[in-house]
């Protein structure tokens, strides 16, 4: 077991990948708690796609160094657009989101499709390359992660209030639209930080699965945040180890990003099973209590 979980990370490139995966896992997981509370799964999914043309343009302008800046520009643009579009009435928000995300994404695909190395580039942009992260990229992830966590620490209470009672938040004088924009920007930042490592398509897993899994285990927000962070980190670690083990020792190539996501989903399944057992235990206890009350 120790061999499986520790040995792969003795080589420097795997160690760097692990640090990156843990950072992204924890930061993404904390954000995912808010994503799940506010039911923003689709908004997050939209952001992961709308960032894509930014990634492509950034790459075309300044090679790999430009990716993060292009992604950042489009992330801010789309976070603002998404916040504003949620206000419109006739066409429902979900339809507008779907159109916005595919429209942006299609622009990205068209830009890539003009290049001669079309398919290889497309795959790299969409799925990232976590095994080739360098020190600079890890530092950037850490900085973005710190900004995200700091923002959530400062605005956490207001965001939770807005999630459960938007009218109450508005009545107390909080600007709901500004809070929504802040959360959308935080989600967008996580997407930007993850783009080069896990690509635009699989970030959605980091932004939904840990929070959804932790939600199945507890009703208390502080506990949910801690559990989600643990699940995010554990998923990154197990996924990388599994991908390495399968690829190196069993000759079965497994894409590392996808394996990390599958590890997260497996943890979600475990959480669902534990949650089901616990709630059925509680039900049994409750019904037992009822029957004993009825007994004379």
């Amino acid at each position, binding site marked *: 077991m120790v061999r499986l979980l520790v040995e792969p990370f003795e080589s420097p490139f795997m160690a760097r990948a692990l640090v990156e995966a843990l950072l992204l896992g924890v930061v993404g997981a904390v954000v995912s708690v808010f994503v*799940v509370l506010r*039911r*923003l*799964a*689709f908004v*997050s*999914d939209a952001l992961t*796609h709308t960032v894509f043309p930014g990634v492509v343009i950034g790459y075309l302008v300044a090679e790999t160094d430009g990716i993060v800046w292009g992604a950042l520009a489009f992330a801010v643009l789309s976070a603002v657009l998404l916040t504003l579009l949620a206000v419109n009435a*006739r*066409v*429902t928000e*979900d*339809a*507008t*989101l*779907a*159109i916005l995300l*595919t*429209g942006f*994404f*299609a*622009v990205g*695909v*068209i830009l*890539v*499709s*003009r290049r001669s190395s*079309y*398919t*290889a580039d*497309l*795959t790299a942009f*969409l*799925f990232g390359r976590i095994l080739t992260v360098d020190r600079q990229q890890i530092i950037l992830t850490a900085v973005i992660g710190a900004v995200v966590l700091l923002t959530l620490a400062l605005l956490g209470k207001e965001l939770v209030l807005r999630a459960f009672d938007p009218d109450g938040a508005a009545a107390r004088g909080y600007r709901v639209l500004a809070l929504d924009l802040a959360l959308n920007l935080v989600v967008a930042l996580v997407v930007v930080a993850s783009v080069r490592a896990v690509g635009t*398509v*699989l970030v*959605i*897993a980091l932004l*939904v*699965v840990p*929070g*959804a899994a932790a*939600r*199945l285990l507890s009703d208390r927000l502080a506990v949910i945040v801690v559990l989600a962070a643990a699940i995010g980190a554990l998923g990154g670690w197990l996924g990388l180890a599994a991908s390495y083990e399968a690829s190196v020792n069993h000759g*079965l*190539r*497994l*894409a590392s*990003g*996808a*394996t990390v*996501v*599958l590890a*997260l*989903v497996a943890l*979600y399944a475990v959480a*669902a099973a534990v*949650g*089901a057992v616990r*709630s059925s235990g509680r039900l049994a206890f409750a019904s037992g209590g009822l029957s004993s009350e009825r007994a004379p």
Partner: protein
Amino acid sequence: MSAEPYVEALLVGALCGVVGVHVVLRRLSFFTMAMTHATFPGVVLAAIVGIDLLLGSGLFGVLVVLGVTWLSSRPRSDPSAAVGVVLSAGFALGVALLSAQAGFTRDLSAYLVGSILTVRTGDLVKTAVVLAVVLAVLAAVGKELVLGAFDRGGLVALGYPARRLDLLLLLLIELTVVTSVPAVGTILAVALVVAPAATARLWCDRVGPMTAVAAGVGMASGLVGLAVSQVAAVAAGAAIVLAACGFFVVSVLVAPRHGALARFRARPAAAPAGVA
């Protein structure tokens, strides 16, 4: 270029437009998005096992529909998170399966952004059959589905099996998605379902005309996108999607009554007479 891609674009456009009406009315865009992503491993598995790709993704999609329905009904879990989890799981499974095969990147991009230029006559027949089936089902229970979208309580009170009708609609969406993914790709198929119907919603108030307009916009998007992609030498699936999005954006601006211009013009009329 041969005529097959254009025929496929017309068929898929009509299919997506018609089904999209129900997706838009019931706010199922995210579910549709999840279906496009989560049926992806079905395609890969079918390719590995060697059965028909449409059949493989279709069968896998049924599993996904049941999975989403079941997960959404669990305590403490809301549909949005359930759909998000299923979407990530399906997509990652597809990528992992595909990465274990040779020729990873080329196949993957074909699935992701579609390859409408390589459709054969056999594919056209399949799409036409699916279109016929979907139209027949909608002709039979379309009214009940629309009632369910606007007034679910009323549907139940009238004695219709509401849950079974919901499931039927999800299966129709699933069928549409697996049929159109080969043409416009996993990520972009949702646009062809949602954009024409959302466009039609801006122009029409009644469901009948809305369905006709949605089908028309879907077909027009297919033709325009394909033609542009040929002239400009860009990815066909993405061009079709941008055409559909273009119809929507123009409609948001200029549609009578519901468009931005019309509402802007209507505003002074509502103001007190002295102001004007």
